[in-house]
């Protein structure tokens, strides 16, 4: 195990980080928001950490805390216009947000060092830190799933009107999901820059959006294990088949189309649904044992 980790250390780290971004993407989808803003949050967090560390010699952990704050605030601010929008308009607005952030990082040369990016960020975060971080996120999502929050998210996603009649504030819960997504995205952005030495604006563009989305769509947009499974499959596939590695972006694209078409609920959600079905059927049988054919043919008891 240890040998494997050291051999595939970098890939493993990237998988752990990708899973984090996938969670940031999943939480908004779970609450029924068509947001693809995770790349923007990640960019904000990564740059916050990079700038604070290289320019102001802030300690990495304080940097991460600030990054998370920045993401939280960005999520909160963005949730205000987003609350008025639905469906495709949300997708358009968040994609524009991502693009604004990318342009800003290129444009604000004096602060972000423009297209060159920021390098020689100390590598503080290693595999153990990332594993701990993922455990924290998993616990968080487990807790969300167990509380009213998760149920509120689910009902909003399935039918907003039903949610409203049950007294669930759609605006508030969607804003909450957005803030969580922002905080998580920015925190992982910070971890990414602490893990990979350098950040540049191009890293958080369209390709990032596709990768995060692919992980969630593949894994499952609802189940708490979905993002981990999705990120794992996407990280392992190119390693298994070397020739695939070159075509990795294309693979993400093809997977997006195939999965959304033929397995719309993703791997984890489909498994969960199948198990649920099985359980329901078993319980039903326990309650009302199957009636022998001869009796049922006889009509009324």
């Amino acid at each position: 195990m240890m040998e494997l980790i050291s051999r595939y250390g970098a890939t493993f780290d990237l998988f752990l980080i990708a899973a984090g971004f996938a969670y940031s993407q999943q939480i908004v989808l779970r609450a029924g928001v068509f947001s693809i803003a995770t790349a923007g949050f990640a960019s904000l967090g990564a740059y916050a950490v990079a700038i604070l560390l290289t320019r102001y010699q802030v300690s990495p952990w304080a940097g991460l805390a600030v990054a998370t704050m920045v993401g939280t605030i960005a999520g909160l601010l963005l949730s205000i216009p987003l609350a008025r929008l639905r469906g495709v308009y949300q997708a358009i607005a968040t994609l524009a947000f991502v693009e604004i952030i990318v342009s800003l990082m290129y444009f604000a040369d004096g602060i972000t060092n423009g297209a060159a990016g920021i390098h020689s960020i100390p590598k503080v975060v290693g595999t153990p830190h990332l594993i701990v971080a993922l455990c924290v996120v998993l616990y968080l999502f487990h807790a969300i799933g167990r509380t009213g929050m998760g149920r509120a998210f689910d009902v909003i996603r399935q039918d907003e009107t039903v949610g409203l009649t049950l007294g669930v504030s759609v605006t508030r819960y969607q804003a909450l999901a957005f803030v969580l997504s922002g905080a998580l995205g920015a925190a992982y952005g910070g971890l990414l820059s602490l893990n990979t030495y350098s950040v540049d604006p191009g890293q958080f563009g369209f390709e990032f959006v596709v990768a995060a989305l692919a992980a969630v769509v593949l894994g499952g947009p609802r189940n708490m294990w979905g993002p981990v499974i999705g990120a794992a499959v996407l990280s392992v596939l190119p390693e298994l088949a070397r020739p695939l590695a070159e075509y990795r972006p294309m693979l993400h694209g093809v997977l997006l189309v195939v999965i959304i078409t033929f397995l719309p609920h993703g791997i984890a959600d489909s498994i969960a649904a199948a198990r649920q079905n099985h359980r329901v059927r078993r319980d039903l049988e326990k309650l009302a044992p199957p009636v022998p054919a001869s009796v049922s043919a006889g009509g009324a008891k």
Partner: protein
Amino acid sequence: MTLFFQQVLNGLISGAVYALFALGFTLIFGVQKVLNLAHAGVFMAGAFIGYYLVSIGLPFWLAAIFAMLGAGLVSVLVDLLALRQLRTRRNAEFAAIVATIGVDFVLISIAQILSKTQVYRFPFDTFPAVFFTFGGLRISLLQIVIVVTVVTLVLAMMYYLKWTTYGRQVRAVASNDRAAKLLGINPNLIYTQTFFIAGALAGMAGVLIGLSFNSIHFMMGQPYMLYAFVIVVLGGLGSVPGALAAGLIIGVIRTLGIAYFPAGMADIVIFLLLFVILLVKPSGLAGSAAVNAGGRR
């Protein structure tokens, strides 16, 4: 002052190309209520086809026509591969976004592999560099050709949608595909048609953009996709006249922004504009949020 008017003129011309790109996008949304994010990939494919045909020696105008047809076919493929299966599903809005992002990414990757991440340029003598001067304003032959092409294509499309039987069928499917089916229209055929038209327009836009900036590369579609967002939101999603007007407006704003603001600022201004429109008037210039393919005339 002449400089200002020159900028406005240039802006209108580039705005016409933006509009050409956005028209197909808005048409697909109007007919199918689907956000086709692969439109950028189709646009890029058009530019690539045009480039390859010119580089094997075809005259430019012929290459442009074939690029249009080729991009139309690519667009139909997008529909067949990514969207046809989803059409039977309820609430496929998000699924369609995901699927078209996927296809767009596949197209981009193919182009990247084909071009080995290089930037292509049309050969030097593809188009004669001739300039005319009208009252102090300079306009190139290329710009005139662009305007004529765009006006012709847009008029043809308007005619098609409004006056032909096919256009009436398209509008029928756009307003209610089930009712259209009862009247004996095959919606799938109509979708194929709209995708072909949208792709052809995008392909021509790709060739024109590729020629006027003389740069063709695999990521060239992405910025135009985002301008198209701003244009269709400003014009009203699904509205053809709205997209036309908004395209010109965005073209002028962007050109002036580049001229009078520091570099890189223009795009930020335009995307911020998108947020403002979404906040103040999400239904756009065309008014009502319920819009259809033919636009509201």
